[in-house]
């Protein structure tokens, strides 16, 4: 639990929820198709290096597999996060046991149910077996009201099928709609849609979120979080999210621009605030791509430049930052913040990591040479 103190002496208690968190295993022993498995983790590593402060870049082996202990310490111990939501990415075509698989996640969540939030995934190509598995997971892991409420839907997942390869699926297909109906039945009301470089058919734009639009319109009672705010199609995303009020901007990846690319970050925030408003933007550091400590501290210290405030007619106040950092996600997942604060006080993780409330003096860090928007 941290408090942000602004130069005018005002204090804001923050409750930070990271909606997109991983404990992955990309160590060489887990590579099934070496070229693809290596290509995947190396690409992640490039993203990390491209946008992180240098002191936060680990050696490759640690990056490929850092494990539970390090993740807990980084995210909850040093990283200011109060709750982190898992978004599994299986990639079974690339990795023997998957990149971040649901079974492993279940194990972590059972140990730390007031900190880590279970999310599963499905793939319409899995058919009835996929639906049965989902049902089982709900029975097993709905150990808090907010657990097992979300699925990550990675539409660029590769899969062996009929002796060939299928390189993706669409969220507006009849098969996907059957899964969405199953989700409704099971109370899994948060769909975290994530696009990747491939989709079927390959001549279509893999990053087009038209299918999310169709699904969001057809399931108005559900919430759809579009990961990395639709990038590289921020424009599509903003138009669609302006129409469908049940679509949310998931800031994973986008958030990391705040440090080395503050002007680009500013333009992105200005557009999100202009098109969607402050209530549908969700924070994530996308650990272990980026360490939440610097992402959160930079974000708290970040101010929209005057020219963009004027041009877009928006602002990014401390109240709005507070929403983005936790309140918005808490609403989406049905997390009662006050109740969670109580549940977390002296919980096993607090004891293990000796967690103490802290204060971040906003504005002071900037004076010490942390980047501010130019």
């Amino acid at each position, binding site marked *: 639990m941290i408090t942000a103190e602004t130069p005018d002496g005002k204090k804001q208690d923050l409750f930070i929820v990271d909606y997109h968190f991983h404990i992955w295993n990309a160590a*060489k022993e887990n590579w099934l198709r070496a*070229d*693809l498995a*290596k*290509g*995947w983790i*190396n*690409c992640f*590593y*490039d*993203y990390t*290096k*491209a*946008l992180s402060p240098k002191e936060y870049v680990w050696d*490759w*082996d640690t990056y*490929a597999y850092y494990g539970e202990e390090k993740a807990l310490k980084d995210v909850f111990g040093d990283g200011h996060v109060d709750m982190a939501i898992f978004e599994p990415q299986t990639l079974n075509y690339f990795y023997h046991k998957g990149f971040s698989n649901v079974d492993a996640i279940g194990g972590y969540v059972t140990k730390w149910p007031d900190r880590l939030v279970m999310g599963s995934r499905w793939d319409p190509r899995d058919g009835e077996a996929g639906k049965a598995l989902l049902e089982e997971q709900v029975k097993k892991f709905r150990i808090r009201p907010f657990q097992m409420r979300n699925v990550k839907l990675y539409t660029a997942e590769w899969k062996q099928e009929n002796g060939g390869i299928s*390189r993706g699926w669409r969220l507006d297909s009849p098969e996907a709609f059957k899964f969405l109906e199953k989700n409704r039945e099971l109370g899994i009301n948060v769909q975290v849609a994530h696009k*990747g*470089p*491939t989709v*079927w*058919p*390959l*001549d*279509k*734009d*893999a*990053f087009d979120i038209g299918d999310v639009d169709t699904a969001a319109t057809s399931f108005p009672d559900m919430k759809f979080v579009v990961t990395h705010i639709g*990038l*590289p*199609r*921020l*424009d599509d995303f*903003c*138009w669609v999210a302006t129409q469908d009020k049940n679509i949310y901007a998931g800031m994973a990846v986008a958030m990391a*621009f705040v440090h*080395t*690319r503050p002007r*680009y970050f500013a*333009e*992105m925030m200005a*557009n999100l605030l202009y*098109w969607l408003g402050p209530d549908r933007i969700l924070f994530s550091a996308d650990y272990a791509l980026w360490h939440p400590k610097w992402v959160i501290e930079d974000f708290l210290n970040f101010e929209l430049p005057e020219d963009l405030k004027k041009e877009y007619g928006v602002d990014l106040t401390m109240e709005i930052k507070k929403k983005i950092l936790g309140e918005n996600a808490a609403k989406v997942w049905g997390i009662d913040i006050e109740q969670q604060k109580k549940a977390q006080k002296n919980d096993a993780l607090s004891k293990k990591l000796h967690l103490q409330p802290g204060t971040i003096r906003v504005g002071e860090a900037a004076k010490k040479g942390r980047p501010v928007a130019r």
Partner: protein
Amino acid sequence: MTQDAQVELKQNVLRALSTVTDPELDEPITDLGFVKDLSISNDGRVSLDLVTSTFWCSPNFVYMMLEEARDVVSKLGGINEVRVHLDGHHDSDRINEAINAGKSFSDCYGAEANGNLVELNRMIRTRALRSRLFSMAMTLSKHGFSPEQLLDLSQQDVTFDGDSIVIRSPGGAVSISDFEDVRSVSRYVRFRERIQPSDGPLVVWDLDGNPPKRDGFGSALKEARLARANFSLNAEMCRALLESRLNREQP
């Protein structure tokens, strides 16, 4: 071929490649650092090594870029053959083979694709047009043109004069010489020149040369602003990724 002729030919090839953009970033592949190596043999055979910012760039846009690179170089005088080699992409082998055999995208991907890339190309180029239009409109507003006044200009009103641009308007001619301003206007004008009708209004809203509606032009420009923001974010991300990638020690 003399050494001088070879140097000149190489410059021509690079100039031709600088007209090829990454469709998703709307920036020349030469500026982005995608051209890794280029060699020309004595008998006019070009070998072109390309790299993209990630192992995972979408195969369809990569295909467009490679096809265009191959075609613009093939058209040059003195070139007898072009071989393209894309390195470090998840589908490198397949794409290289198809591009060098002159196959279309749908021939390359068979049942995995549902046709060629015409529609995708139009989608992304339309956004590039609008993004460039927004940048030009911002620049010209500094020089006294309101968005609505831009709608009254024809293509003939804009002329290049050395390193400057001259715009004819009812209030008299306006000359623009600031480097960034000239670049912003010429990026739109060069794109516009490839759209019919070539003697029509300066401002068009799509690849068929239709002008935007005068009434809603203000809000149309807000859409265009978003397209511009998107391209510039993606280009910045890709530049950063390519830099990381080229500096990475392989595990």
